[in-house]
Structures are given as structure tokens and as C-alpha cells.
């Protein structure tokens, strides 16, 4: 069941575009700011996170867009399984296909830019906890805006403010780590957001989809 959905996603070239976008933007920054390691080390975590937000934003429509266009979404709603479960499967697939590779690319580029190792570790944890939240919150907004003519723009306007708390806590964690302080509080906060999003977002997505289809 889950495999089918992942399979359906795997067949799309457009999946790679956000990832390439992500890599490109991160690579562009050192060109813009020069090779001052001290400056780069301060700017790059934020860059990586903002780019991750934008790349996720780009890829979000893919969760339901093609299903909406070809009518699969009707069949998914009418299947004999609870819609919330199927939505969870779709969001998981989305995260595996964007969030996960994004983390790997981020780690790789940060490594290339000779990031201090202990900060790299914190960055990794913030991304690991944060990107699933991005997919989860994003799914709700996509389900709400799907099929609207100017849906893409509206989607960004709805989503980006909602992403702010995650960005704030992720950045706090990285900054604290750089200053040599504990990051437990921030990571717990991010975990809390993840748990909250995991519990509520699939339900909200499922009901938004039902509303959009009627």
C-alpha cells in the first residue's frame, strides 16, 4: 500500500527540481559572500534552513496536484481505507522524497564548506526534526488550495508564516551550539512541534481534501 504511493511518486522527474534548486542556492552563497570561513559559518546554517523551506514549498504541490488532475484523489477518498491513514502515507512518501534527500545534501554541502563538526551535528538534528513538520503543515495547506487557479502563490502565503516557529527554534539551536551552550530546550521544542504536527496535520489534511472535493 505505502509502496504503491511511493512508486507513483518515483516516476516523476519534477521531484528532482526542488533538490537541484536547493543545492544550487546553497552553492551560490559562498560565491556571493566570498570565501571568508568565519562569515560563511555564521551565515550558512540560516541559508540552509531558508533554502530548505523554499525547496519544500516548491515541492509541496506535488503531494496532491497530479492526483487532483487525473482524478486519483477521488478514488483515494473513496477507497475502503480511512483517508487519514492514506494521507499519512502520502506525506511520508513526500518527506522521504524531499526531506530526506534534502538533509543528505545539506550535510554534504555543509561538510564541503568546512563547517565545525559539532555544529553540523546540531544542524542535522534540527533538519531531521524540522523537515517532517514542513511536509506535514504543507500538506494541510496544499489540500486547502488544491485546484485553485492561483493556488501556488496562495500556498506560499499560507505556509511561510506557519514555518516561522520551526525556523526560529532551529536557528536558536544552531546559534547556541556555536556559542557552546546546551541545545536541549530547542530540540525538545522542535520534537514537540513534530509530535503535534504528526497528530493533527493528517486529520486536518483529510478533512480539507473532503471539503475541496465536494
Amino acid at each position: 500500500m505505502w509502496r504503491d504511493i511511493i512508486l507513483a511518486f518515483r516516476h516523476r522527474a519534477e521531484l528532482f527540481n526542488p533538490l537541484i534548486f536547493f543545492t544550487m542556492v546553497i552553492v551560490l552563497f559562498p560565491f556571493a559572500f566570498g570565501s571568508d570561513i568565519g562569515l560563511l559559518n555564521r551565515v550558512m546554517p540560516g541559508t540552509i534552513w531558508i533554502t530548505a523551506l523554499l525547496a519544500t514549498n516548491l515541492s509541496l504541490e506535488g503531494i496532491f496536484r497530479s492526483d487532483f488532475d487525473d482524478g486519483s484523489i477521488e478514488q483515494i477518498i473513496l477507497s475502503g481505507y480511512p483517508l487519514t491513514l492514506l494521507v499519512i502515507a502520502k506525506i511520508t512518501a513526500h518527506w522521504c522524497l524531499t526531506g530526506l534527500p534534502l538533509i543528505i545534501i545539506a550535510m554534504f554541502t555543509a561538510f564541503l564548506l568546512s563547517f565545525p563538526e559539532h555544529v553540523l551535528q546540531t544542524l542535522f538534528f534540527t533538519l531531521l526534526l524540522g523537515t517532517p513538520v514542513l511536509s506535514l503543515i504543507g500538506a494541510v495547506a496544499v489540500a486547502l488550495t488544491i485546484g485553485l487557479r492561483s493556488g501556488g502563490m496562495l500556498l506560499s502565503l499560507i505556509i511561510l508564516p506557519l514555518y516561522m516557529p520551526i525556523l526560529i527554534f532551529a536557528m536558536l539551536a544552531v546559534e547556541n551550539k556555536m556559542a557552546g551552550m546546551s541545545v536541549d530546550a530547542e530540540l525538545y521544542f522542535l520534537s514537540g512541534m513534530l509530535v503535534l504536527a504528526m497528530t493533527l496535520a493528517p486529520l486536518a489534511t483529510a478533512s480539507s481534501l473532503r471539503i475541496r472535493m465536494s
Partner: protein
Amino acid sequence: MKPLNTTYNNAGKATGESGFEVSGLECIRQDIILFQDISFKLQSGDLLQVDGVNGSGKSSLIRILAGLMQPSAGEISWRGRNISECRYQYQKEMSYIGHLNGVKNTLTADENLEIMKALSGSPQSIPLSEVLAKLELGGMDGITLNRLSAGQKRRVGLARLLVTNSKIWLLDEPFTSLDSSGKSVIEQLIVEHSLQGGITVFSTHQPVEIEGCSIRHIHLGKK
């Protein structure tokens, strides 16, 4: 064409409980009353054709019957229970084919049928190759749907009916973009379904040649 060996979860003939009952259905869209006070009762083996001009609410009626849309008023019950109360159970026994085929263009016919089967949750096992052969879609291994014609895609979409093995078929314009042989294949399927005790509601504005069972009609729009 030999009939497929299908068995339904509840193969018994209609009793008072097992029917599909619609009462006082009303649909209002954009402040226009599309239809009101529609009532009918369908038992095992019944066939209902929804007629009406464009915009008379045929699709809306079928979407409401499928549970995709809420009616403005009225009630739909299946086996004596309102369909919103037993949503998943109803959905397991019902197949809806709308204007859109609900198939993935980037997958092959086989892969699409696999997904349909997984989604339907039906344990039955008609070999998928048999389904494809029945719809004259054989010999297309490895060809993704975006390289097939509109009629062939429609056939893959309609293959859902055979894969899911449900008792109620709700078909919105099933004959769109099918050629005459495709149309007669589907007509044949509907007849077989009806003879096996299934219920079919379909809308079309093409003349239908269905022999062997009687069709009831419902007219929407101005008379």
C-alpha cells in the same frame, strides 16, 4: 465472452435490508436548484440510467450517491444505514468512475490496476491479465498510459470495476471517448454485473443497448 467468476461479500439476493435507498435528495449549487425530491430504491440486479441535458446535475447526483458531495437535503442509505454512518464499509462495496479516469499516466496499465486493487482492499483475486484481456487491453506490457489513446485510458479507468469487485457501480458517462467495441464491452460488463446481483447507476446521453435486463430511468432537469 465468458462471465467472470465473481462472488460478492454478500451474495444473497435482495432482502429488505440489502437495498440502496435514496429519499428526498436535493442538490443546490450556486443558489440554483439542480434537482429536488429525488427518491428511488434499488435492489440487487437493478440498473438505473440517469438522463438529462448538460448541466442538469447528472454528475452531481452520482457524486452525491458516491458520498463525495453532501446533498443539500435528503438521505441515502445502504443496507438500511445512512452511508455517512458506515462510510468505509459502503466505500468497500462501491466503485465510482467519474469524468476523470483516476489513473496515473506515468504508470503502465498493470501498475495502475495493482494500485486500484491495493486501494480497494478487496481480497478477491481475478488475475489482472484476465481483466486486461476482457477490456481488450492485452499486449501492452511496459507501455505507460501517456502513450495510449484517450479511449484506452478510459478502459484502464473502467478496469477498476473488475478489479475492485464491488457491488454498487456508480458510473458517470462511462462511454466517453470509447469506440463502439469499447462501448459494447462495457455494456456487456454492466449486464453481467446486473445478472450477478450488482447494482449499477450510470449517466449517459448516448443510446445504450443493454439486453437481458431492464433499465430504469430517472430524468433530471426540465421536463
